[in-house]
């Protein structure tokens, strides 16, 4: 009630101001009331009609203000009585032997009466065409048949790859009274979501841990983990000329924490075994770079993936301190054309024999991020990364790691893409439980996310928009009131009648 009044008051203020100003703007004339006596009739009906003619606009404004205040304070809500029930359409819902979590979810929906007319059933599933999780409306669970029949029908129709709970947000925006998410297991707090867990099926699996180029061995290492999974894993390589995968003969090796495949050649590979497969696009991480400054040249020589002579990445030192500003500006001009830029900020320039002496009190000989005054870079000269660096701490093993982490930033995609122009699923490259896409001349792959196999650490609860309810009834109500006001305005003020 308080929120209603607090919403109503500011809406009524302009109406009150109009009422105050109105008598001052009223036209006044002197004329006899002799034959205007009917306009002074004190009968209730006449009085009300006359008053309505005078104050219909104020009445409409007050009604509009009250309607808006009721809607803003949610006392008047057009939220449908229906609740949304969404079944998880991820890989883990079909995993394992015997009754799948999906069947248990469908049974739960039927048992709890979640398929009645008060509920609407959805499936949160991966949309391969769009490369992200989406909601798919389902008929009532009772129309899907038995849980096992429904499972088969749904498994045929949907990919059961990954399901991102944040994709449930549209249900909140559509104004369902509540959103129930039926899943095998939900990690972390659910927020506004009502979660029904049906329990997961445990089954053996293998999962890739890393795929990286080993400079020492001169080959790619794909490390993976086996858990209760003894089946042989086939490695296939995509042959461009044939447009399909061919078995690539390579032996599985034991490695610390798991197994390992060593692959010498670049290409698109698929690791597959018993209904599971993972895709890898292996490319040597060679980056052509230009270094400006002594420190950056050292880094260029130290990192094997950097090759001198290109302008893909520009590494530069900027001495920032006494007398260094002019040189810094010169180097900044050089940086402007490079697509990626790494800047090492050298705070103080010292004598030739000790070119870069860094005060330990500032950095404790650790590399760290620092802020550079914006006047040095100008509005468009922001660097990609800025390292506040001490040359003397080059012996510190962490320094090159920082560069590495930036130079090879691409992380495996799992949940899906936000938006990529020209994204097209590549059917011939995709596997059973993995998807390959062509976008912008590159091949991108989506593998099953780790949460399909591993319990995730506690994460932030998903944030959903507050349910706004249906907007059209409110819109219709306001439209009706405005329409009534306009009609009355036309009726009482237009000479056309």
């Amino acid at each position, binding site marked *: 009630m308080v929120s209603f009044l607090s919403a109503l008051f500011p809406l009524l203020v302009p109406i009150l101001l109009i009422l105050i100003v109105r008598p001052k703007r*009223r036209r006044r004339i002197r004329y006899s009331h002799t034959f205007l006596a009917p306009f002074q009739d004190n009968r209730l009906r006449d009085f009300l009609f006359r008053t309505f003619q005078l104050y219909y606009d104020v009445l409409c404004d007050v009604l509009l203000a009250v309607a808006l205040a009721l809607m803003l304070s949610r006392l008047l809500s057009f939220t449908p009585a229906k609740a949304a029930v969404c079944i998880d359409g991820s890989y883990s819902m079909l995993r394992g032997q015997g009754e799948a979590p999906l069947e248990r979810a469908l049974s739960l929906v039927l048992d709890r009466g979640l398929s009645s007319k008060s509920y609407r059933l959805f499936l949160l599933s991966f949309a391969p065409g769009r490369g992200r999780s989406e909601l798919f409306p389902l008929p009532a669970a009772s129309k899907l048949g038995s849980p096992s029949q429904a499972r088969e029908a749904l498994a045929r129709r949907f990919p059961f790859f990954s399901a991102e709970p944040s994709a449930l947000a549209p249900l909140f925006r559509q104004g369902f009274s509540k959103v129930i998410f039926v899943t095998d297991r939900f990690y972390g707090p659910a927020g506004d979501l009502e979660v029904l867990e049906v329990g997961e099926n445990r089954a053996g699996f293998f999962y890739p841990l890393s795929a990286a180029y080993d400079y020492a061995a001169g080959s790619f290492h794909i490390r993976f983990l086996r858990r209760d999974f003894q089946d042989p894993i086939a490695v296939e390589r995509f042959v461009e000329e044939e447009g399909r995968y061919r078995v690539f003969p390579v032996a599985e090796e034991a490695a610390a924490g798991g197994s390992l495949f060593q692959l010498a050649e670049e290409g698109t590979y698929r690791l597959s075994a018993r209904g599971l497969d993972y895709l890898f696009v292996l490319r040597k991480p060679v980056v052509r770079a230009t270094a400006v400054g002594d420190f950056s040249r050292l880094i260029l020589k130290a990192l094997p993936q950097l090759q001198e002579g290109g302008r893909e990445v520009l590494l530069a030192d900027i001495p920032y301190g006494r007398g260094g500003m002019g040189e810094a500006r010169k180097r900044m001009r050089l940086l402007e054309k490079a697509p990626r830029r790494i800047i090492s900020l050298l705070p103080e320039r010292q004598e030739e024999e000790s070119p870069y002496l860094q005060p330990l009190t500032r950095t404790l000989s650790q590399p760290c991020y620092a802020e550079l005054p914006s006047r040095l870079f100008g509005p468009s000269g922001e660097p990609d990364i800025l390292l506040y660096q001490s040359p003397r701490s080059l012996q510190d093993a962490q320094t090159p790691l920082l560069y590495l982490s930036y130079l090879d930033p691409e992380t495996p995609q799992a949940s899906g893409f936000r938006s990529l122009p020209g994204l097209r699923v590549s059917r011939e490259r995709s596997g059973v439980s993995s998807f390959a896409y062509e976008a912008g001349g590159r091949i991108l792959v989506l593998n099953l996310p780790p949460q399909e196999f591993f319990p995730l650490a506690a994460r932030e609860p998903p944030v959903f928009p507050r349910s706004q309810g249906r907007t059209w009834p409110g819109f219709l109500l306001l439209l009706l009131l405005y329409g009534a006001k306009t009609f009355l305005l036309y009726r009482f003020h237009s000479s056309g009648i």
Partner: protein
Amino acid sequence: MIAIDPECEAVSRLFSKKSVRAQYPVYVKSENPIFKKRGTSFNLKNVREYQPCDDLRQIDWKLYGRSDRYYIKEFYEEENERLFLLVDASASLGLFDLDYYRTFIATLATIFLKLHFTINLISFDYQPLATCLNIKEEKNVSRLLGFLERVRFERRTDLVSVLRSIDARYRPGTVFLFSDLFDRNLVSGRLPMFRRSFLMHFFTSLEEYRLEFGETEVEDAELGGRLLLSYNPSNRNRIRKLESEFLQSFERRGKGYHYYRMTRSSGRVPCYWRILEDLYG
């Protein structure tokens, strides 16, 4: 300073030349032969022998020829009818153009004087206020103008009681009523009528204000009341209808009843002529 229409002289001169002059509304002041005054009319009062004090011009020479004695013919006295001009001095007359109003009355009264009528002016609001009686001859126009200049338009009107009061006191035969007829107590059908009534209605229509649609406050100068009116097309039409009914209620025809509606844009001279024709007709 009240102006008299310059056409006044021409109207009176032209009208006096008309043949209808023979139908002058004359009357003998007393109906009782004993109290009838001797005068210059053509109605014979008596014939008597000449006395030394008599005017020689009154000797009837034809009778002298037949009887060889001097006789004198005496006639009754006659005068033109006395007209009562009742001037509404209520506050609502302020809606009309007061100069127009005063000029109209002054000019019409002057024409009457030029045509040898005797006029009596009475101003009133809810009661008779001031009188200016028995104005005869053109030389007394200044009395007439002075009276009209002294009229103040301030209070409410009550036509019915005023007309009854005047009727009881003066028994007027011919009455010229100058008014806007804005009187809420007035029911036109019950307006006290005289032998001959000339109703000059100085009317101001609400439409002359050229109101825009919207909220309008109408203040009644007489009653002091305020009326909040939503001036919109439907109310405008309603007001037009009420106004029309109000005006039609005075336009009824009857013996001795004459109604003239005057607006700010009405020409005065044609109205003078019509009034005179009705007066003589």
